[in-house]
Structure formats: structure tokens, C-alpha cells
């Protein structure tokens, strides 16, 4: 699989593998239970143009701790699954896709676990509708449906070529497409959940902190989700084995490494994109 960083290790080096695994898990546990460094808070505030106060600072630190805990747990789970799967083939591999998928599943879980603002004794709410325009650029909001459409096009091409040359379709092509579509739906549902997370009336700095958190979550979901969906589509592409010298093979052999390298870069750019929350002027 082209998107794998493979490390085939002989059985005699198993001790080294165990040591590396213990160190990796140790780092992961440190990330899960450790304190949020001040630098992360400052980076968050800088990306969101958020003036940090005593109140919303704690709010953001709690958010960063929750997301880091679950994302690190996801990476460790991805690492373990990757090694276990490869052990079945009698070797040890660390698959980047497993690590990234684990991280993203952790990110999805974190969004469900992030605490929303507490409602006071008086139940008050703003009548201002919350829309995605407030929290991220239109490009980022439409990225997940766009990559789902791209995955559909790639899969359609794979199916057409397979039927033309082989008169049958490889099951992995359709399986990866199903995963991509399921993922796209899951990401969209989670994004809408983030958008609709309760936001009762609170002090201006608290609302600003909550908006910044919402915005960052939506950016990460868009960037990470789009990356994983494109990776699924690339795996569909890789699963097509026409078994002959063909321009399609040549094109795919060029597209795959470019996609494997460019997609996470695009995802990273979207996820870390700086954004100032744009609140519409109150209708009064």
C-alpha cells in the first residue's frame, strides 16, 4: 500500500520494537494525562484571534485537554491495531493510515465529550442563528462534501475501468468507497452537532471563548475528515489491479504518491487555518 510507512523488522529485533512501543505509549500517556502547555493555549488564541481572559482561558484549556486526551488515545489505538494486524502476516508494520484514522476517531469522540457552557438558573438564549459562515470559511465547510464527490468520481472511474478490462469489480474498491461515504456522513453529523452545541447567554469573553472553540473544532473536522476521505479514495485507486501495461496504470502511479503527500498537507492547512469568528451585527 503506497500510503504506508513500512518498517519490516526481523524477529531478532523484536526487543527493539517492544522498546520503541513502550516509549511511544509512554509519550501517549503523557499527552493523555499531562498538563496543557502554555504554548498550546497561546497558539490557539493566536489562530482564533482570541483575547484570553481568566474565565475563557480555563474554558480553552479544558477544551485543549479534552481534545488532546482523546486524539492521543486514538493514535495509540491506531498504533496497536496497526501492529496487531501486521503481526498476522508475520511482520511488524506501522501504517500511517491506521495512526491517522485513530487520531481522527479520537478527534470525533472528543467533540462529543467537549463540555458545553453551563446554563444558569435563568434559561436565556440569543436569537442570533448560528451558521457555519461565522466559524470557518465557506471553502472549509464545503471541503468534506467536495472530497466525497471526488471519491465518488474516482470510484466510478475505477469501477468503469475494472468492468472494461476485467469484467468484474474488486471488492476493496467498493469497500473503500463505502468507508469514505460513511466517514463523510459521520463528519457532517459531528460538524452540525458542534454548530448546535448549546450556547446559553453568558459574559462576552466566555461567548468569545466558546465561539473560538467551536471554530477550531469545525476546522479540525473539515481538514481531518477531508484527508481521510481522500485517502479512502486513493485506496480504491490502489485496489484496481488491471494487470497490464495501460495509460491508466501510469496515471494512477503518478496520482497516488502526489495524493498521499498532498492530501495531509491540505488537511493540515485547513485544520490550522487562522480564523477570526465573525459575529453578525445583532438585528436591532
Amino acid at each position, binding site marked *: 500500500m503506497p500510503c504506508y510507512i513500512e518498517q519490516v523488522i526481523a524477529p531478532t529485533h523484536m526487543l527493539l520494537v517492544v522498546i520503541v512501543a513502550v516509549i511511544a505509549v509512554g509519550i501517549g500517556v503523557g499527552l493523555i494525562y499531562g498538563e496543557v502547555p502554555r504554548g498550546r493555549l497561546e497558539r490557539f488564541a493566536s489562530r482564533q484571534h482570541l483575547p484570553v481572559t481568566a474565565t475563557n482561558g480555563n474554558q480553552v484549556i479544558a477544551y485543549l485537554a479534552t481534545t488532546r486526551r482523546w486524539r492521543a488515545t486514538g493514535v495509540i489505538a491506531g498504533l496497536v491495531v496497526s501492529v496487531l494486524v501486521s503481526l498476522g502476516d508475520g511482520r511488524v508494520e506501522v501504517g500511517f493510515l491506521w495512526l491517522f484514522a485513530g487520531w481522527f476517531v479520537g478527534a470525533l469522540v472528543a467533540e462529543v465529550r467537549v463540555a458545553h457552557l453551563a*446554563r444558569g438558573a*435563568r*434559561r*436565556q*438564549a*440569543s*436569537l*442570533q*442563528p*448560528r451558521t457555519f459562515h461565522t466559524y470557518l470559511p465557506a471553502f472549509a465547510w464545503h471541503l468534506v462534501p467536495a472530497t466525497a464527490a471526488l471519491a465518488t468520481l474516482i470510484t466510478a472511474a475505477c469501477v468503469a475501468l475494472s468492468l472494461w478490462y476485467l469484467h468484474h469489480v474488486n471488492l476493496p474498491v467498493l469497500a473503500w468507497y463505502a468507508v469514505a461515504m460513511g466517514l463523510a456522513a459521520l463528519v457532517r453529523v459531528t460538524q452540525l452537532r458542534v*454548530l*448546535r*452545541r*448549546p*450556547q*446559553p*447567554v453568558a459574559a*462576552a469573553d466566555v*461567548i*468569545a471563548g466558546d*465561539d473560538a472553540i467551536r471554530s477550531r473544532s469545525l476546522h479540525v473536522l473539515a481538514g481531518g475528515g477531508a484527508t481521510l476521505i481522500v485517502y479512502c479514495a486513493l485506496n480504491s485507486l490502489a485496489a484496481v489491479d488491471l494487470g497490464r501495461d495501460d495509460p491508466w496504470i501510469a496515471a494512477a502511479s503518478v496520482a497516488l504518491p502526489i495524493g498521499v503527500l498532498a492530501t495531509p498537507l491540505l488537511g493540515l492547512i485547513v485544520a490550522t487555518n487562522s480564523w477570526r*469568528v465573525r*459575529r453578525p451585527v*445583532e*438585528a*436591532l
Partner: protein
Amino acid sequence: MIIEVDPSSPTPPYEQLRAQLATMIATGTLPEGTQLPPIRQLAADLGLAANTVARAYRELESARLVHSRVRHGTVVAARPRSAMAAGEIARLLDDAATSYATTARQLGVDAQAAHAAVARALAAVAEDRSGP
């Protein structure tokens, strides 16, 4: 613009919502074309069931105060000709003031403290409106 629900009130939450929105629309505080928040958003923010907010919106729609359109959500409709007159607004304000004054008297609060509380409440509302 802030809306509030009192869970301890004998008035059902949907009616509290409907009444506040109807007043805001009638007085022009919510002008024609203003988009109301989606049902799920308002329900989540107020800690109510979505059906409760949906019922309030339905009642407003029945009274032709709002209309719902696909992709546009619930929008304040054109104000009817019999919109709330200035006299009616003054009467409602007097009623609210009388109710407040009665509560202040029952609590044994003097006029100065009562005025100060009103000033604070007005300032807080103004701050909410000018907030993010």
C-alpha cells in the same frame, strides 16, 4: 436579542417563547425578514425539547407572524397593519413596571434600590445586545 424561559413559571415554556417572540415582532424589535434561530439551536440553548420550540414556532406561523421556508428557516413575516400602536406599547410597559414595583414593595426594597436594580438590568440587556 435575548429570549428567556422560566422553568418554574406555571405558563408552559412554549407559551413563554411564543409570547416573547410575538411581542418582539409586534413592537418591531424583530423586524420583517429577521431569521429566527433553528429549532434545534434554540432548544439546545434553552435546555428545552425541540418539540417545545417547534410548537411555539407553529403557533407564530398560525398567527402569520412568521413563515417557514425551505433553506431559509423561520423568518419574521411582514408586520400586519394593526401592528402594536405606541399606546399599546406604553400600556404593556406600565403593566410590567407596576408588576416590578409591587415585587419591590413586597421585598421591602426602597425606591432608590429599586431604581438602581432597573438601571443595572437595562445596562445588562444593552450589553447583551452589543456583545459578540
